[in-house]
């Protein structure tokens, strides 16, 4: 696998694309990052609870929310994982569910430092 195609070498959030989409409104981006940091962890915790209960309908609903949030923030790889989880929920297919949730968690932990770095830079 080349470095270019290796997902682990890619940025988790496409901030330049997002800035273009919001007309370079850095205040709005900071606001969106704050919202994301607050709401993602709540939704992810709900997702983990749904997985433990085996409630695939709730997995679908929560992952729909996660996908929208991640897409909005141009976190494309994480959004793709959330979309896969949403589809698993829709299909009531729990095979590979734990792996996909772990993958989403890893991607979230990867994008957090990128968002924090942007915030630190913007506020300095």
């Amino acid at each position, binding site marked *: 696998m080349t470095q270019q195609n290796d997902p682990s070498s890619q940025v988790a959030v496409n901030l330049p694309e997002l800035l273009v*989409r*919001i*007309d370079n*409104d850095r205040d*709005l981006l900071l*606001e*969106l990052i704050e*919202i*994301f940091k607050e*709401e993602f962890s709540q939704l992810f915790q709900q997702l983990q609870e749904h997985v433990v209960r085996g409630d695939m309908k709730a997995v679908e609903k929560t992952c729909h*929310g996660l996908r*929208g*949030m991640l*897409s*909005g*923030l141009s976190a494309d790889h994480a959004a793709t994982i959330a979309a896969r989880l949403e589809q698993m929920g829709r299909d009531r297919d729990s095979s590979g569910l734990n792996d996909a949730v772990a993958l989403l968690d890893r991607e979230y932990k990867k994008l957090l430092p990128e968002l924090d770095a942007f915030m630190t830079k913007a506020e300095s």
Partner: protein
Amino acid sequence: MRILIADDDTISRRLLEKTLEREGYEVIAVDNGRLALQQLSLPDGPRLANLG
């Protein structure tokens, strides 16, 4: 023109709200259907609604 946005995804709602405001629209943003119906039932309520 006044536009209603109803979406429980805060980031999507905020993005659309800002985009429409930049275009000069007056925007009312709510996060659930009950509040959306309240707004739509007002005599001078929004003329257009985007229901997420």
